[in-house]
């Protein structure tokens, strides 16, 4: 959905609900916050963890549907280069969450291990780290073992670009500036979830399916 479609829809719903005025700046803030909120929900929230079972009810990799929904944010396989001296590689600048890591031409897994089990991996005779590399997260970096590893590729969830509805003021009227506005990469169906969350933040409580109905109304009757 274009930023204009998003803003028009939210403005329309606010008017229908006879709420206060709804400025473009508010729209940008709420939509970005809602997008982050929905992405966190899809990636798995700590709050949903059950005692003794460290797994969220909804999380990345949980099923193909979730993965499909957040696929606009999953990067293509990205080469990662670690320092041969330290085995440390910086996270990509748009890194948000880990997905998978592979090594070598046969795409062998590089396993993310818990630091309290690291020595078991490093000193393993059955699966020596030279042929079964592992990594831990450390200070916003990947720390690889063995440190001399090369040829690593990473699949990760990218941080979404920020939504922005931009405008130019012409004769005291705000006119939409399509060239400088930025849409979120969510698909339309997921945008309904984002807009429903943004509306809830701005004081209008609606389900995504209700937002969908309003979107249809705009298409048939106009805003």
């Amino acid at each position, binding site marked *: 959905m274009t930023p204009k479609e998003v803003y028009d829809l939210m403005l329309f719903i606010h008017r229908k609900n006879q709420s206060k005025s709804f400025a473009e700046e508010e729209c940008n803030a709420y939509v970005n916050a809602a997008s982050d909120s929905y992405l966190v929900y899809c990636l798995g929230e700590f709050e949903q963890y059950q005692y003794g079972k460290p797994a969220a009810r909804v999380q990345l990799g949980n099923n193909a549907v979730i993965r499909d929904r957040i696929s606009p944010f999953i990067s293509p396989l990205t080469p990662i280069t670690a320092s041969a001296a330290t085995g440390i590689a910086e996270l990509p600048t748009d890194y948000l969450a880990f997905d998978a*890591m592979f090594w070598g031409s046969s795409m062998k897994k590089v396993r*993310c291990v*818990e630091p*309290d089990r690291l020595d078991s991996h490093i000193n393993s005779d*059955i*699966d020596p780290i030279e042929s079964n590399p592992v990594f831990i997260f450390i200070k916003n970096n990947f720390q690889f073992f063995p440190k001399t590893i090369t040829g690593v590729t990473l699949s990760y969830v990218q941080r979404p670009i920020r939504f922005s509805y931009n405008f130019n003021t012409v004769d005291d009227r705000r006119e939409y500036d399509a060239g400088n506005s930025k849409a979120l990469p969510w698909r339309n169906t997921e945008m309904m979830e984002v807009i429903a969350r943004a509306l809830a933040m701005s004081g209008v409580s609606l389900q995504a399916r209700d937002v969908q109905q309003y979107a249809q109304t705009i298409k048939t009757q106009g805003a």
Partner: protein
Amino acid sequence: MSTRKRLCERLILQIYGGKPTDDAEITPNQVNEWLNDAVAAAAKSNYRENIQLESTAYVNGAFHMTYSDLPVVRDYGDDFLYKVQLPHIPVAIGIDQGVGSVRFRKGYTSFDAIPLNNKQSAFASDMRTIPNKILYSTEGKFLFLTTTIQLNEFTARVRMISGGDSKNMDSEVNVPDDYMPEMILYINKMLATQRSSPVDLQNDGRDLKK
């Protein structure tokens, strides 16, 4: 017949109920470790069944494998004593079922060497060395050979009960298909124990206690 890699993958699929994730603790190398034990257990089972069914103590030839070009070295302290390092410790079935036969090559192949058990080798060590005959006994991973022949100029060719090259995942598992189910059951039992064991999920400096 199946390669080690293929059999390990099959067992992992079974234990995880499908393709394992990148978090899977059970790795092909680990299953391969259990495989060595399972091959020996299958050979022992074959030996026991042959005694029960046919009243003859033997292990089927399908469990045997020939290793060639094993170097022969002179053992320290005795002019007529030589030593061959085997690929692995022979299975301890019967008196000498672990190693089936030993021959030597240097352009031509010798007759089979004569096996001795522990007591026989004690007797033999007190006797004069028999000319042109090769006597051997096993000790852990080594064959000790007594002969007047300059054996270190030869290489050994040993036929022994063996599951194949355990370090090469692409090598075939040297076990007949009728003993595969027995091996799979054994490995599954071991891996199921690992899967059902409590896991320490807390990084609190204390070991998990039931």
